[in-house]
């Protein structure tokens, strides 16, 4: 939005090192020192035989990656909408929640009839399809009712609208499904058992989560780069007006974007059901914000970036508190119960990403209007 976010305009003032820059450098250096000290401390602990064992670290990393893969799938929706319409769709977390919540109906029914354990694959597919359909419907309705009339409105207007939409969906679901936490039945069949890959035992659900995420990502990549609709989406993201002149139906393409984003959120809903099982009307809020962080981390508008950002964010918040914060006691900062600070670590990661590299790890891909 501002010229000052890009480097060229900074270069002109090479010799003016104002206090804002100093402050940013202060943040950068403090962050690096804190992380370095923390990791050193943890390594020391590890060598001294304190803290988590190697097996515990491994399990932690694997579960962080699978949580991160789920964030990545939600992040795709943020990234695509941002790439095309140029605003943060706050309600995307709720799109994810709607699918997760609705799919509890078939899951419970199937579980009660015994079908769940008899036909695990089929059951999961039914749950997946329900979650996807609900999420897609939510996304499309939201687009039509709330965002379409606001095309071309000042930038903050759709953003504020999406906050309103997000609240409306949350409390509409609270009204419909009640406020209590509902629980998915335990994963069917022998999914929870460990599977040994390269001599490393890994919990079956986590492998399934990672495989599903990879498959979804491949499907999406094929769709965006190899199909006509995908090309239309990229064209609209680049320049809506010219894409329209080239005979692309802009409205329909934008709806397609919401459909694809919603479908990915629906897949993430299934993964949530497998990983955490519990769901209530606020379930979408934190994963939503974290997924946006992941999208920024990877570079907004950049689809592989979103997935990478998701996995990295999962690692940051899963491993970070224990690796960095627990190790800080070698300099006398003793933080009890570091896992409480998990969410704070995720948000600090967001701030640091934006301070260190606002364009994300793989670079942002934005349309001509948003790039400026």
């Amino acid at each position, binding site marked *: 939005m501002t010229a*000052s976010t890009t480097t060229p305009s900074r270069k002109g003032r090479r010799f003016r090192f104002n206090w804002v820059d100093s402050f940013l450098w202060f943040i950068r250096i403090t962050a690096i020192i804190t992380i370095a000290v923390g990791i050193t401390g943890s390594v020391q602990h590890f060598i001294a035989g304190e803290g988590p064992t190697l097996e515990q670290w491994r399990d932690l990393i694997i579960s962080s990656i699978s949580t991160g893969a789920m964030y990545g799938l939600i992040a795709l929706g943020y990234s695509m909408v941002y790439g095309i319409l140029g605003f943060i769709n706050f309600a995307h977390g709720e799109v994810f929640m709607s699918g997760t919540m609705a799919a509890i109906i078939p899951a419970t029914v199937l579980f009660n009839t015994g079908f769940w354990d008899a036909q695990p694959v089929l059951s999961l597919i039914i749950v997946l399809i329900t979650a996807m359909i609900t999420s897609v419907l939510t996304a499309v309705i939201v687009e039509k009712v709330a965002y379409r009339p606001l095309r071309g409105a000042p930038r903050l*207007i759709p*953003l*504020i609208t999406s906050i309103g939409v997000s609240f409306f969906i949350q409390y509409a679901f609270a009204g419909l499904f009640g406020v209590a936490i509902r629980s998915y039945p335990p994963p069917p069949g022998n999914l929870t058992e460990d599977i040994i890959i390269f001599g490393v035992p890994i919990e079956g659900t986590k492998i399934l989560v990672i495989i599903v995420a990879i498959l979804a990502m491949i499907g999406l990549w094929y769709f965006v780069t190899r199909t006509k609709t995908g090309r239309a989406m990229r064209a609209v993201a680049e320049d809506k007006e010219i894409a329209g002149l080239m005979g692309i139906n802009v409205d329909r393409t934008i709806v397609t974007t919401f459909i694809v984003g919603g479908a990915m959120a629906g897949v993430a809903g299934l993964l949530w059901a497998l990983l955490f099982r519990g769901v209530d009307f606020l379930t979408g809020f934190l994963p939503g914000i974290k997924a946006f962080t992941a999208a*920024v981390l990877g570079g907004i508008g950049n689809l592989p970036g979103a997935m990478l950002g998701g996995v990295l964010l999962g690692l940051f918040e899963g491993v970070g508190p224990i690796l960095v914060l627990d190790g800080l006691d070698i300099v006398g900062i003793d933080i009890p119960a570091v896992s409480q600070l998990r969410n*704070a670590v995720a*948000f600090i990661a967001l701030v640091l990403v934006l301070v260190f590299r606002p364009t994300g790890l793989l670079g942002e891909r934005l349309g001509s209007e948003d790039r400026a």
Partner: protein
Amino acid sequence: MKRDLKHIRALGLIAGLSMSFVAGIGMVEKFNIRVLIEPAVTMGYLVLFVMPFVAGSLAARGVPNPLVEPVRDPRANGISGLITGLIAGVFTAIFVLIIDTFDVTEFFPNMRASTVEEMTFGFGLAVGLVVLVLATTVIGGLGGTIFGLPQRVRRGLTTAGGWVLGFALFEVIVSDIFSFADFLLDLIYAPQGGLEIWSAVIIGALAWWLTARYEGRAKEFALTVRDADPKSRIRRSVIWAGILAAILLPMLLGGIVNELLINVSLFILMGLGLNIVIGLAGLLDLGYVAFFAVGAYGTAVLTSTMGSAIGPGWSWWIALPVVMVFAALAGLFVGTPVLRMRGDYLAIVTLGFGEIVRILLLSDWLTPIFGGAQGIRRIPGIPVPFLGTISGTRPELFIYFMMIFVGIAAYISYRAQNSRVGRSWAAMREDEDVAEAIGVSTVNAKLLAFITGAVIASFAGALFSAKVGTVFTNSFDVLVSIIILVVVIVGGMGSIPGVFVGAFVLIGVLGGPKSPGLLQEFAEYKLLIYGALLVFMMLKRPEGLWPSARRSRELHQEEALQDAWLDKAGEFDDDESGEVTS
């Protein structure tokens, strides 16, 4: 004609869906406890039947077209409304039938047998459904017919309806104000709550007659005051009358209303602060509650001797300036890293900051200082000479503190808005690059906005902790940030009176994040309504209820240009503009 029918069908379906929705989330059932007019009109049915009424009236208007005046004809409009209502009624009836037939309570706890009973008015399924469809149809038709009536009658009806509703909905406040005239209240209100039917008729008729007679004069007076010179006698006397009323009112009002006013003014205070950040400087801050938390926890730690390891037990008056400095530093600290971010990244980063603050306050790590989940207790109130310590237990005195600080914040906003800083904020809000090019230091302007906003929020925090006496992290949820945002937006971004209007309408009537408003029944659903309201305002009236002149010009710039263009086009060719519409 075909388009109109499609329009009617769509409206009918939307109304039916909305009716099914409010029934399905249990709103009708829960609101039905509250009787508005003896014996039939309850709040639940009001919420339910507002849908076909509005849909009927919209259907009568026809497909929206700015170039054509809608046809006003009671009979034709009434028929459109009737059809709309019929569709809505049938839709709802089918919904009720479905939830009666299938047991879905396992997943949708609010779609239970008692819901069906409320929706069929206790007449049993068959008769009840017929009554439901008929009632919806008639109310839809009524909506249409009223749209078609001549303007004079329509306005009379709306004012009368508005006043009756006001008296019925705000029974608590009316009783509280007129508690000295008990016999009158007993006359108007039924013993178990709600207006008596005849008193509703009298209030309506009286309102109609009074507005018809005096509205013109009142408007004239308002216009004279508005256009008068700020230093003129009439303007001054109005302002003095306002101040006098503000001083006298809390003495006359009862505890409930004062308590409510304190809550409202707390949000006015925060709204004014956020208005500077969002409305004037155009920085979307979603973590505003963090500064409120700094103010509240700062005061709590400095004045309380319980729950915190520091606890110097200072007086509130000494703590206040220290807290203000802390808040300003916090504003600087949050503001600096986000200076060069895109507007919408700023939103999410500030949201993140707000959450970080809350998580840190709650964490075991900082429990010795901030009390963790226990919070900080026994915060003394505000010591005042001759009056003792004033805290939330004495709302009739505490309200004056709120008024003073609201006054200070409003004065700061007003002066800032019309100063050099205010103009640089406006320039920055419009276009940062251009602002920088004409010599506005956007760094300073942004930081100043953040700091001013933070300090005003810390006032609110300091007052809040003195009022409640205990602070928990619960009171500093993201929700609070969002609710302040809704207050500012509903009132009108960048508009100082707008913040007052927004806070009174939302916090006063619907209720704040933790405190109930006048309509206590809404408690469970208020966030649903907040969300819907935010979307509605953004779509239909982005400039807010009481817009600032500059802001509404900005938002409607395009329309104004379009109008000018249309006028110009009309000069050349008059009948072609008529062709376009058909």
